[in-house]
């Protein structure tokens, strides 16, 4: 028999397509011929494999079909997975390690820094002197010149810092007290009274520790008053006491009202006290007076970012500073004969006046201090 015919018969036999007699004949042939039998077994395996192979191909193509169709009709949504996310998924382990190292390094550095750094208290005090607008104007004109490429002819205004503050007279001979930080490193200090008269002064003594500075008006146009209307308080102060201030946060004298809110200053500083009053740059060096017209302090600074925490140097420090000045031997050479005879006013002549009258009398002894 032709081998091809045999194979076709085997296929028909396996598929059960043979008629009963033919099937009987073929089964007999299988039994008598081991070669045929072997072929039947082998071909059964093969056909089975082909069958399954076909099935797998069909189901695969159906699945792919369904997948595409469901996606196209939007019945299945692709979850949003961007390139970034894919990269993240791929590298998240690395990122985690890198981030940990960064965090550890940062912690270590900050730890070392804080361990070795000197422990200085953070100064959150803002000195209440003011920067003068002349400076800004001066710089502006320089900038304009530069921008317009004008030749820089003549002397360029020297960029000295002009500081402004307030000061008040403590002796009719022309002695004025203000804050040391109002003067700073300046050498020329000019004072201006509430009428706009300017007087040149000499810096007599600066006590940086107490933040106090003493000036003396050395101007021929200055007429010494007979007596000062206010006194300098030497004694105690009481919590809740009403106070008022006069100062030059701008070119005009400005009045402020408040109360004594604490007997000590910033971080428990006993040289100063805390007052609740509106104070702005320029108020520095101004007097803090009580209702009797006695100076109880010199307004100096305020705590930054804290509402209503203004500090004033207690007036008794003026006495102490004056005593120090008189003792300071280095000053002896250039000492003014009048220096030793400074007498702080002890009695207030405005004691029983109302506030408006008090201010009228006091204001002419309050000066705008400009230091160049």
């Amino acid at each position, binding site marked *: 028999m032709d081998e091809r015919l045999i194979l076709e018969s085997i296929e028909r036999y396996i598929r059960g397509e043979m008629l009963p007699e033919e099937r009987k004949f073929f089964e007999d042939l299988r039994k008598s011929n081991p070669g045929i039998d072997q072929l039947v077994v082998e071909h059964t395996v093969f056909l089975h494999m082909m069958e399954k192979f076909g099935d797998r191909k069909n189901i695969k193509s159906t699945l792919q079909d369904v997948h595409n169709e469901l996606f196209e009709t939007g019945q299945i949504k692709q979850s949003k997975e961007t390139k970034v996310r894919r990269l993240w998924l*791929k590298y998240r382990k690395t990122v985690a390690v890198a981030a940990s190292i960064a965090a550890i390094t940062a912690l270590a550095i900050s730890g070392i820094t804080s361990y070795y750094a000197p422990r200085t208290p953070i100064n959150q005090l803002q000195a209440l002197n003011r920067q003068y607008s002349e400076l800004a104007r001066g710089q502006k004109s320089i900038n304009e010149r530069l921008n317009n490429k004008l030749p820089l002819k003549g002397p360029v205004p020297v960029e000295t810092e002009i500081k402004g503050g307030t000061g008040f007279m403590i002796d009719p001979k022309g002695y004025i007290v203000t804050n040391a930080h109002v003067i700073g490193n300046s050498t020329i200090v000019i004072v201006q009274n509430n009428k706009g008269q300017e007087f040149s002064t000499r810096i007599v003594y600066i006590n940086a520790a107490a933040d106090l500075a003493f000036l003396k008006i050395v101007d021929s146009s200055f007429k010494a008053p007979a007596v000062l209307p206010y006194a300098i308080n030497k004694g105690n102060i009481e919590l809740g006491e009403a106070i008022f201030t006069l100062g030059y946060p701008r070119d005009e004298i400005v009045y402020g009202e408040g109360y004594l809110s604490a007997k000590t200053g910033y971080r428990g500083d006993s040289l100063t006290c805390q007052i609740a009053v509106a104070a702005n740059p320029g108020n520095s060096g101004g007097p803090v007076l009580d209702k009797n017209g006695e100076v109880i302090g010199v307004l100096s600074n305020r705590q930054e970012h804290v509402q209503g925490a203004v500090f004033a140097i207690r007036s008794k420090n003026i006495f102490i500073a004056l005593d120090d000045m008189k003792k300071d031997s280095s000053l002896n050479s250039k000492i003014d004969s009048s220096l030793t005879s400074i007498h702080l006013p002890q009695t207030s002549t405005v004691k029983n006046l109302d506030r408006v009258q008090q201010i009228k009398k006091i204001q002419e002894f309050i000066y705008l201090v400009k230091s160049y």
Partner: protein
Amino acid sequence: MTTDSTEQELLRGLAANDRKAIETIYRTYYSMVQTLVINNSGTSDDARDIFQEAIIVLYEKAKSGSFELHAQLKTYIYAVCRRLWLKKLAVYKRFSGDLANARETIATEDDLEIFEHRTKDFEMMEEALQNLGEPCKELLESYYIRKKNMSEIAKEFGYTNAENAKNQKYKCLMRLKKIFFGHYNNNNNS
């Protein structure tokens, strides 16, 4: 736990390569698998491959007739996909995270072994057919897979009569069997 009647119906439909049933399966379970794969360092293409492989496992099990599902379909598909994806991750050498530590809900090891064995056989068959070249490949696929009869095939391929087509088919078949059984016996004996 026995599966309810709808799931049984779905399985019957799947075994019969019924498009409706397959669509239902797709709609019901695909997003679960997609979430699983994408949340564990995979892409949406990975998700598609994994899901389709799992459905083929299910299909071949359902088709074998002796199939009894002892868990919910959802649980079974999830378990199969999880295993398949872990294997892929091991191949990609990607970070598998806590997926590997998650407790296995049901054993799918045996099913997957059968599946992989078959997949290997089929790959061999595919390769053998590829090596035959045309028209042998097409001729054999038309007859054995698409189940066309010889006179149809003769017409399609342009043979003058079915007898010539049968002759050609026979030659192709012998070559295929030789290649395939060569591989097959080698692989199964080694």
